Every structure is written in C-alpha cells, then in structure tokens.
C-alpha cells in the first residue's frame, strides 16, 4: 500500500471569468516522481502556485502529511517542507550565491541581531560542494553566473533542507543536457530518500522516462493519473487534448502556388544581440512561418518588420519601396503586429476593449473631423463580435479577459484596421484548443483575401500545419528554409534548429 504524502482536495481557482482550476482532487504518494502535464493554460502552474502559497486558494485545501497546509508565500511553504524550482529566473540579482540560497532563512545565522555572513557563506559552500557544484563560489554575486549555473544554484536552494515535496516547473527546457542530467540525478536522489517530486514538463518523452506516474490536466480539470510504464506519448497527447490528435484544425491544402508578387522585403537586417543579417521576402497571400528555439532571435524579426526594434540596421521595404522604420509608418502602411508579450505590447492592458480595438483606427473613425464615442463602440463591437470575443460589453477592461480572449481583441484590432501584412508572434501561446482553431481558421480566411501573414512560433506543428513556407533560425541568423509539404516532418525541422 502506497503512502499518500500530499493531497489536493477539491481545489478551485478563478481569474476573472476564467475558471483556471476546477475542483481538483489529487493525491501524491511518498517516494515517487509524479509527472504533471497538460496544454498551456490547463492549470498546472496555477495548481502548483496555490500549493506554494503564491496564489490564494478560492476553495478547497491541500493536506500535507495529514495536516492542512496553510501557507501564504514560498518561504512559509519551504518551512512546511514544500519547495519549487520555477520556470523563469528564480534567483535574485544583486545578491550573492549564499544570500540567494538562504533567502528568507537568514535568521539561522543571526545572533543578537547581527548576521554572521562568514558562517552563511561557509555553509552555502559546503552545500554546493556536497551537490558537486564546486566551481560555484558561494561568496560571489549571483550575476557572475549564467542562466544554467543559476538554475543549479536554485536546485540547491530548493532541496538542501530535504523538502517532503519538490515541484519542478518546466525547468528542463532552459537547461543543456548536462544541466538536465544534474537535475534528473537530484530528482532521483530525493525520491530515493522517500520524498516526492512533482515534475512539470512539455517534453513528453522526458516525462515518461523519468517519472513513476503521470497526472493529466485539461482546462483546469484533472483527467487521469496513469503509470508511466504503461503509456506512450500518443496516449498522453490524447489525454491532454481530449480526442485523437489530428491535424483537423490546420490547413489541409498542399501544393497551391503562392503569388510571385513581393509585398515586403527584408534586406540585411541586423539588431545588435538579436538578429544578424536577415534577408527574406514575403509574397502576396502567403503565410510565411519563422521558427527556431525561443532564443534564436525570431521574435525580434517580428519587431523589426513592424519598425519597433531599437538600433536596427538594414532595410525593411514595401513593394513600392516605402521604407518601414517606425511603428507609425508600419501601421500607416497596413502592417499589423501581435506581439508575444500580449499584456505589455499587444494590448493596453488597463484599458477598455473598445479603446484597444479602436486605437490604430481612430483617424478613419472620424466623421466631419469629430470622433464620437458611439462610433468607437459600434466599431469595436462589430469586430469583437465578428471573432466572438467573450465579454460583457466593449467597455470591459482587457485585464479581466482570459489569454485567448485577449488575443482575440488583438486580432479584432488589426482586422478592423484591415491590415494587408499581418505579423503574428506566438499567436496561440497559452491559448486553448478551441480558440486556437478559431485563430487558424482566421489565418486561412485572411490568406484567401490576399493578405500576407508572417507567423513566428515556437510550436513546430503549428508552422508545419499552417505555413506556405517556413524559415528556420538559429543563433540570430537564417539556418534553413522549407516549402509547404505533407512529407515535411518535425525531425527535418529540428535538425536545422539546433
């Protein structure tokens, strides 16, 4: 009989109208590595954030070792034996390695109100040595170490006190193979000591290989918990998406010729530290994909085309030779851009849906040089309804909307502006399957109308499924080009990426 160490009981969490975690009841056993998978927005990170006290729980509870867990922040969670290694940077700049490791627990080195830094450094170094990270010096500033080393330091920080439950939230994508191996080693060690690891990852092969059992979430609901030895990647995908995964929501046509008319050309464009000497052309009615690893510079290409890059060199020109050097000229000449950073760049987050949709189109909404609120609201309503934004009315603030609906507002803005060249950076990031399908349908529709689209995406399947042509980038430069083909596979693509 397995012993349960942690149990989530009827846990719920909502953000505005989004019910992110629905009534999840989930036991975790002692001495296991449990995979936690699901699509973006399925509630994995939200569930774990509640466990760690980062988010408050709307209703329900976590039971750890028979007692209700009641924590308000990570330090309290640590004291109760729960810790996390986060997806992003989890260490603080401007502090030493030792200060980072003992952040929130400095009290143990304080005597009579004075902190004994020497003792703290000594103990931190002893821990680093014990983990085999001798090359890291506890007294150095954390900023002297690269992302990878800082993740290793986080491993020490999250595990030195032998937590009963360790959460690892999509950490491996940021690590090289050797960094991953270190992480796997410590995951196994923690399990072998009789404690529990909750492992969140999008890499299904990795999840199957390194976990004992796997729980699947979909749209905030717990679908199933399976034994890792019994499942294949395809089984997991099926559980995650809720049906046999096919390409139904992608385009199905192949071999249709794309027009020879060039609508936009990018010549020798460089942005310091981001992209080197990029040149390509976009044709009328073409969906051009740009893919690669997240850090390959592809996201900057979208900004460069939209005139939003700092210190850009080289030329971006339209068919008639008009140079695009600023956001205003880009918008004026019918270029639209949906950024990967939806909340800060794509939208004015603390503003109404109406304003967000109307902002670039204000000039054309004037009647006799006068702008009436009524016309703005009508315009916003028309385009929000057209792509069915889920909202109360157009005066609602976009900050209250879910990720998918925010993206729809962004698209409504540019459809309303009737842009001919549309740059979409990570258009389906964090968006559920249904809205995804809507967005793909919209892209096909735009293509049919003769509009040209650049899709920048980290999701290879999306690029293979939707694009007429795909550019692959690596280290800020072009590394390959593929034409649309049913025989093109993910493997061909990855070979050019890394």
């Amino acid at each position, binding site marked *: 009989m397995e012993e349960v160490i942690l149990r989530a009981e009827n846990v*719920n969490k*909502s*953000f*505005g*109208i989004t019910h*992110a975690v629905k009534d999840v009841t989930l036991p975790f056993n002692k001495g296991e590595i449990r995979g936690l998978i699901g699509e973006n927005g399925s509630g994995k*990170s*939200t569930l774990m*954030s509640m466990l760690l006290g*980062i*988010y*408050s729980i*709307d*209703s329900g509870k976590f039971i750890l070792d028979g007692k209700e867990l009641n924590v308000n922040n990570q330090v309290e969670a640590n004291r109760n034996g729960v810790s996390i290694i*986060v*997806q*992003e940077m989890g260490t603080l700049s401007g502090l030493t390695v030792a200060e980072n490791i003992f952040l929130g627990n400095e009290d143990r080195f304080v005597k009579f109100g004075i902190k004994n830094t020497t003792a703290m450094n000594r103990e931190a170094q002893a821990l680093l040595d014990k983990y085999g990270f001798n090359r890291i010096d506890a007294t150095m500033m954390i900023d002297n170490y690269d992302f990878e080393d800082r993740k290793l330091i986080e491993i020490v920080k999250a595990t030195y006190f032998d937590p009963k439950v360790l959460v690892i*939230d999509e950490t491996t994508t940021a690590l090289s193979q050797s960094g991953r191996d270190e992480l796997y080693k410590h995951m196994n060690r923690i399990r072998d000591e009789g404690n529990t690891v909750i492992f969140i990852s999008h890499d299904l092969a990795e999840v199957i290989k390194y976990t004992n059992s796997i729980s699947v979430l979909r749209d905030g609901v717990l679908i199933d918990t399976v034994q890792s030895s019994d499942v294949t990647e395809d089984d997991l995908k099926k559980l995650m998406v809720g049906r046999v995964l096919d390409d139904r929501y992608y385009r199905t046509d192949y071999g249709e010729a794309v027009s020879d008319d060039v609508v936009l050309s990018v010549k020798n464009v460089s942005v310091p530290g981001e992209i080197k000497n990029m040149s390509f052309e976009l044709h009328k009615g073409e969906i051009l994909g740009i893919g690669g690893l997240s850090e390959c510079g592809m996201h900057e290409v979208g900004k460069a085309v*939209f005139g*939003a890059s700092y210190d850009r060199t080289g030329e971006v020109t339209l068919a008639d030779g008009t140079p695009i050097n600023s*956001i*205003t000229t*880009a*918008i*004026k000449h019918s270029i639209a*851009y949906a*950024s990967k950073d*939806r*909340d*800060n*760049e*794509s*939208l*004015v*987050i*603390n*503003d*109404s849906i109406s*304003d*967000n949709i*109307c*902002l*670039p189109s*204000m*000039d054309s909404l004037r009647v006799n040089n*006068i*702008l*009436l*609120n009524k016309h*703005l609201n009508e315009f916003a309503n028309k385009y929000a309804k057209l792509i069915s934004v889920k909202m109360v009315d157009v*005066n609602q*603030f976009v*900050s*209250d909307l879910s*990720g998918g609906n925010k993206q729809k507002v962004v698209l409504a*803005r540019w459809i309303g502006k009737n842009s001919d060249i549309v740059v979409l950076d990570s258009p389906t990031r*964090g968006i559920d399957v249904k809205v995804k399908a809507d967005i793909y349908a919209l892209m096909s529709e735009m293509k049919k109308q003769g509009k040209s689209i650049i899709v920048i995406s980290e999701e290879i399947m999306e690029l293979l499924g939707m694009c007429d042509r795909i550019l692959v980038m690596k280290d800020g430069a072009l590394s390959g080009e593929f034409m649309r083909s049913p025989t093109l596979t993910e493997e061909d693509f990855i070979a050019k990426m890394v």
Partner: protein
Amino acid sequence: MTELQNIEIPTTENKSFGAKYREFMDKPVTRGVLPVVGLLIIIALFAILTGGKIIQPFNISLLLSQTYMLMIAATGVFLIMTMGCLDFSQGSMLAIASIVICYLSTYSLPLAILGGMVTGGAIGAINGFFLVKRKMPSFIVTICTMFLFRGLCAYLTTNSPVYAIGDINKYNTMTIELTLTAIVLLLVYLLFHFTKLGSNLKAIGAGETGARFAGIKVEKTKLLVYIAAGMITGFAAFINVIKVGSVTSTSGNMMETQILIALVLGGLPISGGAKVRFTNVIVGVLTYKILSTGLVMMGFTTQMQQLIEGVIFLIVVAIFSDRKSIQVIK
C-alpha cells in the same frame, strides 16, 4: 503562471469584505459618482458648520473668484496626469509667466497674454525635453524645474514686487474671468472627448508600451502635452495678474500641490489611465476650494488648514489608488 499574475480577481461566492470593497471601488459608476457625492457632502457640511455663510451669494462669488486660476491651471495638469505623469513646476511656472505678463502689460494686453502663454509653453517644453529625450521620471524633472524657476522668480523680485500696468484690475470682473475659464474648460473638454487626444492620453497612462505598439507617438504626445499644459498655466497667470496686479517671490507658491490635491479629490486616479474623466477637474477644484474656503471661514489658522487638507488628501488617495497600476507613475 506569469501571464496570470496581475489579474487576480476572486469570483467565488464567499468573498471577503476586502474583495467586495475592491470590487465596489473598481466599478466605473463608483468612480464617477463618489467624488460628486463628496462635493455635495462638503457643501452641506460647511453650510452647516458656517451657519449658512458659505452659501450666501457674496461668499459664492468670492469663492468663485478664487477658483478661476486654479481651475484653468488644473485643466492642463489634468492632461499630464491622464498620461500617468506629474507636474510639480506649475506654481513657479505661474509666477514666471505672471512676471512676463506684468512687464508686457505696459505695452499691450494681447501681447501680455501671448507672452504669458509662450513663457508657460517654454517651461513646459523644458520639462518635456528632459522627460522625453533624457528619459527622466516626470516628478524628478518637474521638482528640479520647480526649484529652478522658483529661484529665478525670487531673483527677479528681489528688490521689489513686479507691477503690472496700473489699470489692469479693471478686467477683474466675474463676467470676464468666468467667461475665460469656461472657454478653456470647453476647449479642453472638446479636445479630450471628440478627438483622439483623450483616448491616446488614457492609453499612454494605462500602458505606455502597449500604446506605442498601437501606433501612438508617445514621445511626441508627451512633449506636446507638457507644452500645452504650460501654455494653459501661462493663461492662468493672466487671471492671476488681473486679480493681484503684481508678482512677489511667493506668487503661485504651493499651487502644484493644490492642483494635485484638487484633481485627486475629483476622483482622478493618481496614475492616470483609462479611468480618468473630464469631470474630475471641475468637481475636484470646486471640492478643494470649498474645503479650503470653509476652513478659513471657520477660523482655522493656515497651519491647521494645511494639516487638515493633508489628512483628507491621504485618505482620498488611499481610497482611490488603483493597486494594479499605482507603480507606473512616470
């Protein structure tokens, strides 16, 4: 995890009092109605406390005559604060513009008005330049220019106050002043509501990066708004001169704080943004002026008035601050 962090709104049935309170305060209606209710309460309160004195016709016209200058200057600052910026140089700007108006009034009155507006606009341009080109936060820039022009004002008035032409107070009538104030308010109201200016300023206040990516020329807009606000204050200086007839080193002292308090009393979120309404200016300035005049009538000393105003200001800011965007004052 990252994208959901700043939109935490509990929606379950058993909400805490705090959550209910926040929800109530977030309603647009609340923001629109509460300042008006505050104004009415303050009028009623002082009507009772002063035994009806404050609502006698003579006192109302006295009250109004003290309101015009602040009302006009606040209209410009309203535009600045909508963008989430601040301006502490208003008082010193008013003083310098008043000096210029006094000098020029001996030649020609239209020239004097124009000179005042150009002076205000120039100081606004200096603020805007450092804000936009040097990327300095607005409160730092305008605190520096406040000291700079306060100093210049003290220098120019070292030996004696600067006097305007002797008969300038013939314009000091309710008809002229009320008309001029109404014209400024109406102009800014029309610009704010029936051109893209209002939406653009609100968008800059609500999210500058997002506004830039929506095609708004953020830098140019900021610079122009600071110049415009300067010119409006330069115009307010004209009202100041026809009322007082001279400028001393303390002219316009503390006006920047009075404007700030007035606008916040009117319900303007201190970080600007989409929740700004034009009525904030009118309601706010009236509330502030009735409050301070009422305190004078009740016989409070200046020091005591400041103390009371400070307490009220703190309470109102605490009630109206928008937790989601308070950190973005530029």
